[in-house]
């Protein structure tokens, strides 16, 4: 082969070799084909642990029970028993702090009318659970006040009226 063909060929092979060498150092050792095969399991294994390390924010009602026993038992006896504390009080832990370790001492309670209307705006959809929930017309039923002025969300029945 003539040298004017050979020389660029050597340069080209050199570049390819360099790229492969760089790849050897840059690609993490745990990157490769894993359990689900080449099509679905070609990834960096360490990322699975990264995802597991994400902080858990919502703790569930049982977490609240020990300190807030009175509020826990009152709502568990009411028709609202299946609503988690954190649905209205917000997650116990956030990226900024934890309620338990008191870096987040107060949780912001959502007392807005929109919060109650999530379920109590009447939508008569026959094959949905929504049609079985009592609703109000938000434009006619005391439009300007928070629901919790009169209704106790922990005791939503008439006996709990304030």
């Amino acid at each position, binding site marked *: 082969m003539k040298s004017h063909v050979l020389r660029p060929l050597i340069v080209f092979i050199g570049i390819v070799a360099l*790229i*492969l060498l760089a*790849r050897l150092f840059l690609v993490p050792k745990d*990157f490769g*084909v*894993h*359990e*689900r*095969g*080449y*099509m*679905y*399991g*070609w*990834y*960096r294994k360490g*990322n*699975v642990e*990264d*995802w*597991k*390390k*994400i*902080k*858990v*924010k*919502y703790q*569930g009602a049982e977490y609240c029970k020990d300190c807030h026993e009175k509020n826990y038992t009152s709502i568990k006896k009411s028709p*609202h028993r*299946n*609503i*988690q504390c*954190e*649905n209205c009080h*917000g*997650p116990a832990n*956030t*990226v900024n702090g934890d309620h338990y370790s008191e870096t987040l001492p107060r949780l912001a309670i959502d007392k807005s009318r*929109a919060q109650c*209307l*999530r*379920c109590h*705006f009447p*939508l*008569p*959809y*026959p*094959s*949905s*659970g*929504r049609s079985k*929930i009592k609703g109000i017309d*938000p434009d006619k039923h005391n439009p300007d006040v928070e629901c919790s002025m009169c209704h106790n969300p922990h005791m939503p029945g008439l006996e709990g009226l304030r």
Partner: protein
Amino acid sequence: MITRRNFLKNTITGVAALSLPLAAFELVDPKKLMASEAANPSKVRWVFLVDTYKCTGCGFCVKACKLENEVPYDSNVTRTWVERYVTTKDGKSHADTPAVGGGRDGFTHSTFDLGQGKSLDIKKEDIEKAFFVPKLCNQCENPPCVQVCPVGATYQTPDGVVLVDRSWCIGCGYCIMGCPYGVRFFHPVHHTAEKCNFCYHRITKGLTTACVQACPFGARQIGNLRDPNDPVTKYIMTERVGVLKEEYGTKPQAFYIGLDREVK
């Protein structure tokens, strides 16, 4: 002497060689490929079960998901959402999902958002059929979003959950277009592909997902398909359940009770 024939031949070979991706230089051991499906050692296969009869469209699942998974609360993107379907007596069917914050505030209006500033109010007496359908990632057994990723940034774990490696994702957006269910989006903060991962940080700790915990009506359930005693598995195996867009061959693993042909 260059003939036209040789020139064309060489051009075609050259172009074909250039189009080889670098990954082609990696020698893939066929044994590695074979081992994948046959000997999956995982004792867990996460699946989801949605009961559309129980869903009331309150949106607590969306709210919990956004806060748990740090998806910006006021952004219109979300990992899970709720759709509303109404068929009127004149045979027309309508579907919408609240635009505000990706539906985190639930359905608090009877008006339908038709997009482009148009809306439609459907009267109670005109409704023939109406219900809500929560949507989330189906964690498909054949995830098309994973196949199209050119860099190996999205993948399926042995327990069936499709994850995104944020440090690896180049943001090309192929997976977002590749998902037939539209569950993927760009994360407004990380600028990488984002999707529901069944709260992987929670389920691997023995907790349930944030949306399942937040649902007051039990419309959402998560289970392990490899555990025959799991109530979700028992239900899927013995009762009538449907999946979304079965014809795509993605083998979705989110099962629905009470699906309708309007639901896509």
